[in-house]
């Protein structure tokens, strides 16, 4: 514990490329880019299958398979591709495989919760909208999305938490981010403080980002629906249609 405090208060650990601020920035950019990419894939797809009901089974099954794939395996599967595209190891090793693996990790929770959120909207409301002459896009935009938004943002929160914690293993391939402290700390048994500090920083970052997203979730939710918002186990249960419908 004392060693950890010494490490965290040592100015040398707070400056330069290998300092906490830079590693934190690297971690945030990597995770932010991956979650954004996953949102660009998962949100439109989830809205489409949720609204139309078409291809829902196929998409959910693919998402479930995607969830079963170990991230560490995904990370190295793309390594030879990245190496052949960017032979300079400092660029390819650092970013691309981790980015792809983290995006793949984040798509299933976003896709599945978006679908589940839209599907959970009372069909009578949708019919009422249709009766009032709203187009399908208007129904989606003005009825389904506002009602489903807490669930959808909940999915993004789950995905973000997973990505922040998992991006740590990107450091195995020589990438930056807070994982560097964990991996280097482990390979240097004389200085366990670095490992603990890395783990602590990742956890703190995750908790802080999750808190921010909770505020976003609340702000995006229509006032009338703000009663009970929480990141419930929506993803865990929604992802498995057989069980959740039983």
């Amino acid at each position, binding site marked *: 514990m004392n060693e950890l405090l010494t490490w965290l208060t040592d100015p040398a650990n707070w400056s330069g490329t290998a300092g906490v601020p830079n590693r934190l920035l690297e971690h945030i950019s990597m995770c932010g880019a991956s979650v954004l990419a996953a949102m660009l894939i998962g949100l439109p797809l989830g809205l489409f299958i949720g609204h139309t009901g078409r291809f829902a089974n196929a998409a959910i099954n693919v998402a479930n398979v995607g969830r079963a794939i*170990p991230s560490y395996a995904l990370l190295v599967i793309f390594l030879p591709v990245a190496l052949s595209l960017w032979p300079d190891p400092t660029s390819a090793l650092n970013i691309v495989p981790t980015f792809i693996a983290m995006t793949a990790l984040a798509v299933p929770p976003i896709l599945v919760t978006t679908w589940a959120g839209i599907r959970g909207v009372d069909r009578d409301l949708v019919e009422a909208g249709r009766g009032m002459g709203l187009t399908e896009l208007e129904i989606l935009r003005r009825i389904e999305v506002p009602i489903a938004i807490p669930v959808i943002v909940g999915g993004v929160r789950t995905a973000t938490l997973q990505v922040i914690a998992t991006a740590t293993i990107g450091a195995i391939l020589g990438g930056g981010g807070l994982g560097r402290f964990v991996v280097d700390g482990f390979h240097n048994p004389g200085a366990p403080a670095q490992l*603990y500090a890395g783990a602590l920083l990742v956890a703190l970052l995750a908790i802080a980002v999750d808190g921010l997203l909770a505020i976003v979730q609340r702000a995006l939710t229509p006032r009338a629906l703000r009663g009970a918002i929480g990141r419930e186990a929506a993803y865990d249960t929604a992802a498995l249609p057989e069980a959740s419908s039983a």
Partner: protein
Amino acid sequence: MQPGQPLINFQWIVDHLGAIWTATVQHVELTVIPVVLGFVIALALSIWAARRPIVYGPFVTLGGILYTIPSLALFAVLIPITGLSLVSAVIPLVTYTILIYLRSIVAGIRGVAPDVIEAAEGMGYTSRQRLTRVELPLAVPMMITGVRLATVTTIGLVTVASIVGGSEFGGYGQLITEGLQTLFPTKYLLGAALSVLLAMTADTLLVRFERRVTPWARARSAV
């Protein structure tokens, strides 16, 4: 990767079938132990916590915090305490599975319709009978959901454990880690492919099992 070296060296695979089998056995072992052990512990905890928000709340909070700690760090932290033994891998793995189970089992018990509970009470069931004859059987589908989630999560975590476990634990992850260290694509790609295969096979088998024990769900899940 050396220039001119093929991406996959099949001869190496054939020559190392023994080691690959050992890794397979270890990976399955390291998955089954936490999945079974975690279930037993979580079932007891869930029964205790299901109707007590005071108990369940802190569990969920604790679980949320634990999930933010990178698994890699959790494995590494235990090495100085428990050494390079299977125990160092099993403790974090069991902890993760307990958290997954706890949520799904409690959701299953709480999800039982109030009408059903009332009917059981009307029939004069004691609270213990209600639990064993009504609530737990009706929570079975959610329990299997939990087993599925716990199994694929554990398979993934075992590969990560290899980073700190050296040759002691890590199953297929060991092939990945050693392959990366020696820049030998055949080895790390094989480890990655086999761990993906194992996760998918386990998931498929559990889905089949799920359908078999909950035939009513199939009729209802008109996705």
